[in-house]
């Protein structure tokens, strides 16, 4: 009998993403989060073009309630609340993502080194992590912003400094688990360097929980930015939702809309991110994944 070339029953790589997507899509809450996220992304990208009113401009009479002259009313100076929300979205989203990036860079680096090398390196780095963990986050962020000039970069830096610890601990835990797996030894036996084992072998295998942590981290960063801006430590040259709430806080009884609508915007953004993060958690859960 002639040996025939068997055709493998190929599961294309794209199928894996497809399966993760199916898991994600079967989660109604996650889909809601995604839809909400898409609306926010749309507003962030196209909002200022579609609704070009300058948020600093006093366009109408002060404290005009929603629906009278403007859709969402005006604040105590007569500035358009809707314009503020539309233009402030960029700052909020930018700070959210940039601070999360910074958080990931610090957290992953420290977690990778601690988890991979173990011994005194791990001890030292984990003690440093614990030190940062016990510091009150918002207070430290305020101190940092106050020490340096309150600009958008300082805010991103401060948020990164106070939120990296969970990422470092998670990365370390994943490393401790994965470095014992057989393929790590197999890679060594193939002549891989320590660096390539860290970054090319173990880290990619630790990604699913880190992706989830990063997603949820964006929500945390946005809340931090809002809190700092509310306390008057925001970047004075950028318009953000937190700033709007902070600016109008003395008039909360007279212009409830000036603080409520930006608040709702923050709430919906963080909610959307949390729902997406939860959905990803389920979809990327290794226990539910194929082999």
């Amino acid at each position: 009998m002639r040996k025939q070339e068997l055709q493998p029953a190929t599961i294309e790589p794209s199928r894996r993403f497809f399966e993760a997507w199916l898991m994600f899509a079967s989660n109604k809450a996650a889909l809601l989060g995604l839809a909400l996220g898409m609306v926010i992304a749309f507003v962030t990208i196209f909002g200022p073009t579609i609704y070009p009113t300058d948020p600093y401009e006093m366009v109408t009479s002060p404290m005009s309630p929603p629906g009278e002259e403007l859709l969402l009313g005006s604040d105590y100076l007569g500035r358009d609340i809707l314009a503020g929300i539309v233009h402030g979205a960029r700052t909020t989203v930018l700070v959210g993502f940039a601070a999360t990036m910074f958080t990931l860079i610090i957290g992953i680096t420290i977690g990778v080194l601690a988890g991979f090398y173990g011994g005194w390196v791990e001890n030292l780095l984990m003690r440093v992590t614990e030190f940062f963990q016990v510091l009150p986050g918002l207070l430290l962020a305020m101190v940092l912003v106050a020490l340096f000039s309150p600009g958008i970069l300082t805010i991103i830096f401060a948020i990164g400094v106070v939120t990296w610890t969970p990422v470092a601990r998670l990365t370390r835990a994943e490393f401790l688990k994965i470095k014992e797996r057989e393929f790590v030894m197999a890679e060594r036996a193939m002549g891989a360097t320590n660096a390539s084992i860290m970054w090319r072998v173990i880290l990619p295998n630790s990604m699913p929980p880190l992706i989830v942590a990063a997603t949820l981290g964006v929500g945390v960063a946005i809340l931090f930015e809002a809190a700092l801006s509310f306390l008057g430590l925001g970047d004075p040259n950028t318009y953000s939702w937190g700033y709007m709430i902070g600016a109008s806080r003395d008039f909360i009884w007279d212009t409830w809309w000036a603080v409520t609508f930006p608040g709702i915007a923050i709430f919906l953004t963080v909610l959307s991110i949390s729902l997406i993060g939860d959905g990803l958690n389920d979809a990327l859960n290794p226990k539910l994944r194929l082999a």
Partner: protein
Amino acid sequence: MDPVLKIEDLCVDFETRRGLLRVLDHINLHVAPGESLGVVGESGCGKSMTALSIMRLIPSPPGRISEGRVLLKEKNLLGISEKQMRDVRGNEISMIFQEPMTSLNPVFKVGMQISENIQRHQGVSKSEAKERAIQMMRAVRIPAANRRIRQYPHELSGGMRQRVMIAMALSCEPSVLIADEPTTALDVTVQAQIFDLLQDIKERMNTAIILITHDMGVIAEVTQRVVVMYAGHKVEEGPVREIIDNPRHPYTQGLIGCAPHLKADPGQVRAALKEIPGVVPDLSQLDGKCPFRPRCPQVMPRCSEHMPSETKAGKDHFVACWAAGVAR
């Protein structure tokens, strides 16, 4: 033929809370190009430790190679830098592991894993490495290799994954291939295919193969020479036919007794499987005397006085046992 790999007086110690354990005690072995050497023994006797010492992959601490030399074509692998050693691993000496299910990195496509190893050691371009990866996969008889390279490990069967591991191990045409129980996790028909493949590779590429296993049946089928290990010691060594037909060490005799089909006696086919009573001793309990003594059917007073030294028991046949020296 001159051996390509030679281990001389290799000793490995492990630092534990109960003191220093000698995991390997003065191991000597060698393997020639195109030869396949079987290393056999029960779990915990030092087979895998020997393999890992050759690769210098002993977890350290707590492990340490305290004595001896590992010579690859006259080059002492224990004397070179870690950087030089990395260039030996996967290039001049390759190793395949027991669990093909978990020995491949799950997040990368198999073709990429093979070509990455080629690129790492041979400094060739990406496209050339990919081309050679496909060739390698064809060489280990993976059907439709040019489509398989785009698959992830979890999409392949156990046998296919072990083939991929072998392809990766052979991708730089190493002079020595260490196979640590390569088929333990596979079913019997696949096992036969893998051994067939190893045999074929050995002949075509003139690779020296060190096959580690606990299965005397496998040894009889695929190797030419055998080293029998017990509790970190080499107890017997010789050509495979000689060892199977005329085992001198009681431990070897016991191992062969556990594999009934080797000496299939028509009248006794249904006889109960023999076993070696007892278990491998705790390494911390060793006292420099014969370690097999508590389980040995031929034990005598001398056994608890001195460690037997290696004596010649035939052409290329060595044994370390007092009883073997006297009995015949």
